[in-house]
């Protein structure tokens, strides 16, 4: 039962994540990302982490993605602008990601191992940087904080990307005031 739920939500997560990165329309992409977040909550539920699942819905699906949608709509980037042609360079990215994925899989000798990793490590690995357990109290705190810096940098970058080409309009608006 639990494994069926895990596979169901995991599958939904992968499909919706793929759809999220392939949609042209930014609002549709954001919506698929919402489904990814909800499926992730479902995966947490299947792993028996009820609180984490609710927090996942509350924080990511409920707050952060609404904010994402809000910004996407407010900025209102025309869909045509996003139709950039496929670059050959990005193929290398796909190859590299695939290699990492294969390497990751081959490290697991059998499927049993995968299940153990999924059930045992996921929940602990998620909790330990924040709460810590026993001797390794906050062992990953630095990595965790660095990750948050990365997210801030990404958000700033997104703002910068959106702002370019809009300078004139905003200056005019300032003059009006």
């Amino acid at each position, binding site marked *: 039962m639990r494994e069926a739920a895990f596979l169901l939500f995991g599958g939904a997560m992968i499909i919706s994540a793929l759809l999220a990165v392939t949609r042209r329309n930014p609002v549709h992409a954001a919506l698929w990302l919402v489904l990814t977040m909800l499926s992730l909550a479902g995966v947490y539920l299947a792993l028996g982490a*009820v609180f984490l699942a609710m927090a996942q819905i509350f924080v990511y699906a*409920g707050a952060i993605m609404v904010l994402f949608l*809000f910004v996407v*709509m407010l900025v209102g980037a025309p869909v045509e602008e996003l139709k950039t042609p496929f670059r050959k360079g990005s193929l290398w990215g796909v190859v590299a990601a695939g290699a990492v994925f294969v390497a990751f899989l081959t490290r697991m000798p059998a499927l049993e191992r995968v299940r153990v990793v999924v059930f045992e490590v996921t929940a602990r690995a998620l909790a330990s940087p924040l709460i810590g357990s026993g001797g390794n109290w906050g062992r990953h705190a630095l990595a965790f904080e660095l990750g948050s810096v990365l997210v801030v940098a990404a958000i700033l970058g997104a703002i910068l990307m959106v702002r370019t080409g809009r300078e004139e309009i905003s200056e005019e608006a300032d003059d009006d005031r």
Partner: protein
Amino acid sequence: MLILFLKTALLFGVLLTAIAYVVWVERRVLGVMQARLGPNRVGFGILATLPVVGRLFRFTKETRLFGLGQPIADGLKLFTKEGIEPAGVDPWTYRLAPILGLLPVFLGFAVVPIGPDVPVLGRIVTTQIADLPVGVIYLLAVGSLGSYSVVLAGWSSNSKFSFLGGLRAAAQMISYELPMGIAILTVVMLTGTLSLREIVAAQGDIWNLFRFPPFLILAFVISTICAVAEANRAPFDLPEAESELVGGFHTEYSGMKFALFFLAEYAHIFLGGSILAVLFLGGWNIPFIGTLAKVLPVLLNPWVYWILGVLSFALKVFAYVFFCIWLRATLPRFRYDQLMNFTWKVLTPLAAFNLLAVAVLGKLL
């Protein structure tokens, strides 16, 4: 499994009927408050044509019953209306939005304890669909999904009025979730549990509202204001301000899709009232039942107790619903900057300091 199914079906039925009739109550109460009549024409004239019932109650085609037939007429109208889809809408998102509006609200009711446990055929049945150990967080999580409906409705309609309404609604719902969450946290901290069932059980002697006066009363007031704002009700109905935005996010909706938004709004009021009743007003607990039972021992019979408990809960929820209608008849709409200033500069700091005060008091006493 069967019991669960029956409970869900019963809750659905009761809720939908209550929503239909609250619309009638609202129109009548607004009528009285504004010195006019409200809908009083549509009766059950059709009952007069029935063979036995018509004779028994002396129904005629003129039987009006204070306009009690109005919700049925309204429902039939909405069901049979043509669902117009304007040109240029984003089809799937446009159809998804009304469903997303109703779904989270009904999901929220799954954890609300409506009455005490009752023995049915030798089994103890809880009057609650699911008792989650994290019920409070679940309510907040599910409630936060409600904003997708208005945002998507506003965006997909391809209309400036809808779009502005949707953006306003999203900003408003995110902003008012915050003080609501903090105020609810006060209760959670006090009772030390996230399960709604245990929160109700902990209020057997004294309602949370009356603990540590005046701090819990302040938390209750903040939660009430936020619950009204979350349901987009007057005076917080900026997302559908008719004088500037036509109908706001649901301008371009008609027929059953509009009816779903309508249902969601009223179901939201009920959910808000249920949350407030459970967290602050003792849930289904009946005041002074211990003293009364000494005189009338029949009150402690499980079924009598159950009926009284459910009535007590319903009364509390309905008091909140009436309060919402009252507000609508009394207060003018906020201006947008007032709305935002109110939550970020007044409610949120107030709720945070309130939480701190209760934390300190709880540690000292």
